[in-house]
């Protein structure tokens, strides 16, 4: 009897039901949309669809890492505008663009570091820390801009937003590179493996001679850096920077990650692949609602429902993979 059980488990750990269903849904949506609107499957719309969720997509990569490591970071929606503003202000001072970028990125990195150090020193849940940092940053952004939008960059700067390679805009190119890097690393690289370990069992990782604090520090820094990158890209795309950028971005990002099947309850479970799917799914939803002209009021309701269903699904697969609570107790 046990044998059979084992086999079932085996099969499930090989193919991931959750991803299958998600892919299936994406296809269904795509088909029904393309039947509904003749503009849906146009190059422009696809590009638009990507563009409209690209910043979240970038941040989702980092967020996945954070959540796998067993934390959450909701300060990203503060970091994005913060970095954008710093970058913009520097550009107005005619600082060479590369320098401006590096400085802005550094700033975001520092925020990440601060997040981690506060978490470590104050011994409180990352969610609380990052929430505090987010609130503070939002105020800071307002204060340093006096709420006014920063714009009027050199003509040369605007070129960036027009730059195309194989018809792909800068943010998309950046994302593709990042996505590939993150995917490959998450699958095969020592560093990312240690993130999974820390998320799975922090103490054990420490006993195995892993510097867990160091791992976590980099997780938070990298996540903040990605948020910062998103901020800089926003500035190039919209050719301006405002404290209003990235409102509730953290919620959209986490939703995408969660739909992708990364578990917020059990650190160490989840994958970049899932997040890529989740991101695509979200982009599709947003686009579909505008395309179909359904009042976007329904969008929130729908997204909420989708989120629950998707998570139920992933939890479902996870449980089938492992065994239910009582069994788990039973075998000890």
């Amino acid at each position, binding site marked *: 009897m*046990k044998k059979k059980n084992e086999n079932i488990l085996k099969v499930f750990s090989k193919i991931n039901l959750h991803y299958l269903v998600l892919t299936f849904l994406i296809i269904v949506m795509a088909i029904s949309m393309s039947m509904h609107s003749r503009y849906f499957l146009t190059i422009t719309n696809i590009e638009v669809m990507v563009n409209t969720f690209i910043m979240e997509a970038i941040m989702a990569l980092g967020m996945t890492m954070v959540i796998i490591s067993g934390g959450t970071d909701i300060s990203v929606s503060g970091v994005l505008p913060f970095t954008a503003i710093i970058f913009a202000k520097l550009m107005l001072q005619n600082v060479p663009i590369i320098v401006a970028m590096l400085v802005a990125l550094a700033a975001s990195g520092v925020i990440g570091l601060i997040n981690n150090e506060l978490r470590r020193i104050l011994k409180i849940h990352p969610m609380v820390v990052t929430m505090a940092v987010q609130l503070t940053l939002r105020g800071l952004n307002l204060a340093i801009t006096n709420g006014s939008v920063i714009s009027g960059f050199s003509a040369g700067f605007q070129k960036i937003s027009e730059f195309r390679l194989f018809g792909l805009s800068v943010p998309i190119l950046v994302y593709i590179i990042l996505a590939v890097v993150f995917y490959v690393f998450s699958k095969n690289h020592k560093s990312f*493996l240690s993130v999974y*370990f820390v998320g*799975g069992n922090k103490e054990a990782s420490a*006993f195995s001679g892993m510097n867990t604090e160091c791992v976590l520090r980099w997780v938070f820094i990298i996540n903040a850096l990605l948020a910062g990158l998103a901020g800089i890209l926003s500035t190039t795309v919209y050719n301006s920077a405002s404290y209003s950028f990235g409102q509730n971005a953290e919620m959209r990002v986490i939703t995408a990650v969660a739909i992708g099947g990364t578990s917020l309850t059990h*650190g160490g*479970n989840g994958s970049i692949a899932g997040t890529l799917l989740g991101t695509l799914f979200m982009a599709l939803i947003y686009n579909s609602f505008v395309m179909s002209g359904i009042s976007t009021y329904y969008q929130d309701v729908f997204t909420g429902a989708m989120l629950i269903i998707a998570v139920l699904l992933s939890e479902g697969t996870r449980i089938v*993979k492992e065994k239910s609570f009582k069994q788990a107790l*039973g075998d*000890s």
Partner: protein
Amino acid sequence: MSLLEIKNISKSFGSNKVLSNISIFLEKGEIHSFIGENGAGKSTLMKIIGGIYQADSGQFLINGKEVHMQNPMDAFREGIGIVHQELSVADNMTVAQNVFVNREPTNALGFIKWKQLNEDTVTEFKKIGIDIKPDTLVKTLSVGMQQVVEIVKVLSRDVKILILDEPTSALSDKEISNLFELLLKLKESGTLVIFISHKLKEIKQISDRVSVLRDGNFIGTLEKDEMEESTIIRMMVGREIDNLYPPKAKSRDGEIVLETRRLTRNEKYLDVSLKIKKGEITGMFGLVGSGRTEFAYSLFGADGVDGGEILLNGRPVRLKSPKMAIRYGIGYLSEDRKRTGLFVGMDVKDNVVASSLDFIMAKLGFLDDKKSEQVTEEYIGQLEIRPSNCSSLTVRSLSGGNQQKVLLAKWLAAKPEVLIVDEPTRGVDVGAKCKIHSILRALADSGIAIIMISSELPEILGLSDQVAVMHEGRLITVLENDGLTEETVLAHAFLKGGDNQ
């Protein structure tokens, strides 16, 4: 010149001194056991050797030259490997990933060579005669198997000094004997094996020398020929414990409280029919995975049943939840006190009343604080939980033995008719062990029926009036315990049950 020389090591946490200048010589190619009551400082000493803690004073010499270990990595470099008491595997990862954690075979860029990783893992397990799929998730393995992964993880780095901190507490006898063979092999190959256990039998069986610690002091080292259980215990406890086990039940004709008829839970256990009498202790012996805990879960309503029935005082009952079981007067002291027993962050009082809130209730769903205070004090006294003023201390701050007593108190407070105790003395030192044994017997005498699940045969034989032997989900036999010997029980367990592993 000895391989590892420990020179007046001292360590204290905050105000309380855990180790006061310990000095021991440990030789190449010996199996050296450490024994002592909980809180004697064994684990701390090992953690210091393993580089997880740093000593306040004193030094280590390996082959005569002093070494400083700031973190586990340094210890590994010195060829020291340590298997921890509490599982330290990441159960969300595969076996291979766990075995080679933090030193995966990688290329120059730090990318992992999966093929090599898996092959290496297989070979490592081969060494101890186990073949395993390297890509299985650890969480899908039994606890015993997880412990094995843990051990292989350490062995796989070729260690000069191997420390095992209570490695056997979660292992079945078969796994244990495998482990011991392995240890002897290692010893032959000149490895120093440091072995910690509470099971005197094991220690006598395999160790060349045994060192005894008490309250952070080094008491002495015994050679193989001086290892008399009584001597060791005296050194540990600092006093004579003439009689390890309390006397058996006075009368054997209490009426049957609990009876199961062909009770079955698919894939767990099959056709278990058992009669439990008032005033008796029924020992339930079986290896890990023999279905004994699962059986207990069904009796306690924590898991359903697929067939058969449970009769309580002759009336059949359907137990849907532990809540219900407790109402019916059944208690279950779970084997894993940290995970499923105690609320370590809450104070002793809260823990003691946890499963008897209904009893200490005043009107309208309000709790009677005074009463719970009384109840707690009562059991602190009765079970000699130390420190005696601990009622408002967090359980976390108590020693393992006392934690176990608190867990027991929780169930005494619930005033059960039938009390199931699962591994009641796992990881508990001899002193506390005796106390717990005598308490169990006292309870039985007061008319409670007790089912004691244990994988320690001496305990089973020493304490129980009848012994139920389970194997592979079946109740092999129920033996009356008069002059029962370990051999007979094991014979039933393996021969009758048929050892089809």
